């Protein structure tokens, strides 16, 4: 049996992996056509203000001949309204996240359709597994838009996929509401098609920095993942901390890393950090957190443990990080005490599948679809420009709270605001919780930040003590 064949195949696979990792930045196509549309539209709007609406529509149709786009432009053309939804359903994506989002989407679709659909038409959600990979994100969009002819796209969990997807949204002028992708540039590039209801990484970094500043820390270690989410998030956090005079060092690891012993040894060999902030996600974060606890790095009296937000899944957390008591963790999205009626109704259905309060990405998935449905209904049309206009004018309360997008085509982002505020929902709840009893449910964990939501009147429960 030829050994050379095995080695060649293996090297080929390895090269493919390395190349795909290097090629994580999507090829950006300059679509001049779209630009022209904008210009033409502006001109025509002014001129045809007193003219019948139909003329305006005609102009736009002529000016958007993007090859491949097959979404219907008017509701009369279709029996059902197709909306695309991307999510991770296989590794290296977060299958856990994808499962939650799929459940949420299905709850939303049932709700919409049993309520008569959108303007009398049923909604059909088409799923696509992006597995967190940029090339799959692109493939997902191309498929959904040119094969399934979806009128809009919602969802996505991983920034790596989202960063690639936004380019395709722009190319085909398809309204897109991103549910859980944090990378700043997704809205930072200011595409009119792209909206986001998750926080931008910088928002989160700002909250992290504010909390750490309030704790009076001077040196922090950040452990992050090698991805389009992890690296920028770590950079943003480092910047924000530096602006507050807090020093930090960042260690990065690939998704799926199991053995953190060398990096823990390294951290312990250097200056003792006052906190370790874990930006790794999924089971990778559990591996680090448990090994750090076993090695006596954190949580200790000297070093605060700020676990990754997946720690909110308390049963899973305690199984995988049994020595993780006194870890804090950030929580994006609502806690039960902040739930409104929409949240509670959704929670009830969500608990039929998972016995826990819906995670932020589940709420976001639900909301992203409901938002899009709401916008199509308000626009009364499948015309992308009208949907976009309706989205920009959103004022509706859904599971995560009241949605609005302060900055858009009608109100551009001013110079003193960061560029990612474009089409960004600004009121994302970001809290810090802390476990203080082994095996504790997340519902019973203490809220320690921001001050107005604290449940135990403290920023931090000291290691080993009761609140």
């Amino acid at each position, binding site marked *: 049996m030829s050994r050379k064949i095995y*080695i060649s195949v293996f090297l080929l696979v390895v090269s493919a992996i390395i190349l795909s990792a290097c090629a994580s930045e999507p090829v950006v196509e300059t679509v001049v056509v779209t630009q022209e549309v904008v210009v033409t539209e502006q001109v025509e709007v002014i001129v045809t203000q007193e003219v019948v609406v139909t003329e305006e529509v005609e102009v736009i149709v002529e000016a958007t001949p993007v090859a491949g786009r097959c979404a219907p432009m008017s509701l009369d053309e279709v029996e059902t309204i197709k909306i695309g939804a991307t999510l991770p359903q296989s590794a290296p994506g977060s299958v856990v996240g994808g499962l939650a989002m799929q459940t949420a989407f299905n709850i939303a679709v049932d709700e919409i359709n049993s309520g008569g659909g959108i303007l009398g038409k049923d909604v059909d959600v088409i799923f696509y597994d992006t597995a967190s990979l940029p090339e799959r994100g692109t493939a997902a969009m191309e498929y959904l838009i040119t094969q399934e002819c979806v009128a809009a796209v919602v969802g996505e969990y991983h920034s790596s996929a989202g960063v690639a997807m936004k380019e395709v949204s722009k190319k085909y002028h398809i309204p897109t509401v991103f549910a859980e992708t944090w990378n700043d540039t997704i809205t930072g590039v200011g595409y009119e098609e792209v909206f986001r209801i998750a926080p931008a990484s910088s928002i989160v970094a700002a909250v992290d920095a504010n909390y750490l500043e309030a704790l009076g820390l001077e040196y922090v270690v950040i452990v992050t993942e090698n991805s389009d989410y992890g690296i920028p998030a770590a950079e943003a956090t480092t910047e924000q901390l530096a602006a507050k005079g807090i020093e930090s060092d960042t*260690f990065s690891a690939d998704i799926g890393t199991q053995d953190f012993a*060398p990096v823990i040894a390294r951290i312990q060999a250097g200056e003792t950090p006052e906190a370790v902030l874990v930006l790794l996600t999924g089971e990778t974060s*559990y591996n680090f957190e448990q090994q750090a606890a076993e090695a006596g790095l954190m949580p200790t009296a000297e070093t605060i443990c700020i676990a990754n937000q997946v720690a909110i899944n308390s049963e899973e957390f305690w199984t995988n990080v049994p020595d993780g008591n006194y870890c804090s963790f950030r929580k994006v999205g609502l806690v039960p005490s902040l739930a409104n009626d929409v949240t509670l109704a959704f929670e009830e259905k969500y608990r039929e599948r998972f016995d826990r309060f819906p995670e932020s990405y589940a709420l976001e998935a639900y909301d992203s679809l409901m938002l899009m449905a709401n916008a199509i209904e308000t626009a009364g049309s499948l015309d992308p420009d009208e949907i976009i206009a309706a989205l920009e004018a959103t004022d509706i309360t859904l599971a995560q709270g009241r949605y609005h997008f302060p900055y858009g085509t009608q109100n551009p982002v001013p110079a003193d605001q960061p560029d990612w505020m474009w089409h960004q929902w600004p009121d994302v709840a970001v809290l810090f919780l802390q476990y203080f009893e082994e095996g504790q449910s997340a519902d019973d964990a203490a809220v320690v930040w921001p001050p107005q939501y604290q449940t135990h009147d403290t920023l931090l429960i000291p290691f080993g003590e009761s609140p």
Partner: protein
Amino acid sequence: MVDITGQYMLNLLLNGLLIGVIYALMALGLTLIFSVLGIVSFAHGEFYMIGGYVVYFVLQRFTNLHPYFAVLIAGLVTFVIGFIAERLLLQPLAKGEIERPAEYAILITFGLAFFLQFLMIAIVGPFPKKAARFFDLPEISTDILVTTATTLRIFEVPLSGNRLIAAVTAAILISATIFFMAKTWLGRGLQAVSQDRQAAAVVGINPLKMNTLAFSLGTMLAGMSGAVLVAVFSWVPWVGVPASGKSFIVIVLGGMGSMPGAVLGGLILGVVESLGAGLIPDPGRALAYKDAIGLLIFALVLLIKPTGLFGRDL
């Protein structure tokens, strides 16, 4: 940034060895399969993954069961699955019934890998699982050695109790395997077939039976590697993918088909990865390069001595 003290180096070295022993156990199985069947099983990591899950579920169901029994059960389960897989998928290859054997061997084990992985996702779901610690360490306190239930400190270098137990268990299993190969008739038969298939046949050894035995033993060793690690790392259905890759590197490093090579190669890889992650100047990237280090070794071996450390004379 890092003070390179003797203690730091000892930390890296010891942790590297602990992980290396596990690499060695897993690679032992893969090299056994290669030495007798002449193919590389790309599904090896999936047996590692299944072994871990078996221990997790067995210990969940029978909380008072001694963890070593669970490890043995995991070995038994992966042995049986390997047996069935070999009979169904690989025997035709050995009997010469396949038209394009080289391509078939690669594709069929890849196919098996995907099948097992996604089957497990469907059965157990994607949520990370972890078995409870196998044993609490006895509490000792001397000048050099201090232990708590979870951690052992030697010369003040902290070693995870879990990991230590896993490594010791793996070492026991490696020794058992070596004993089996050297001292039992079946082990001798496997060695004979791996050294010269035709000669073994003309002295009365059934090569097809040895194929099945070798593959099943190989998958059993992979399964037991996973079985000892499920209390150390969080377990998900795709946990076998990087493990497969590491095993492959180890057997090429040690010499494909060589059992001492697999053991030494595993230890070397574990130590080099640990040293690399701990010593590469850029702390931000050092851990991320850990896997690259393994591949670098791989490339160097192929360039300098393609047959590996204990490579067979071609």
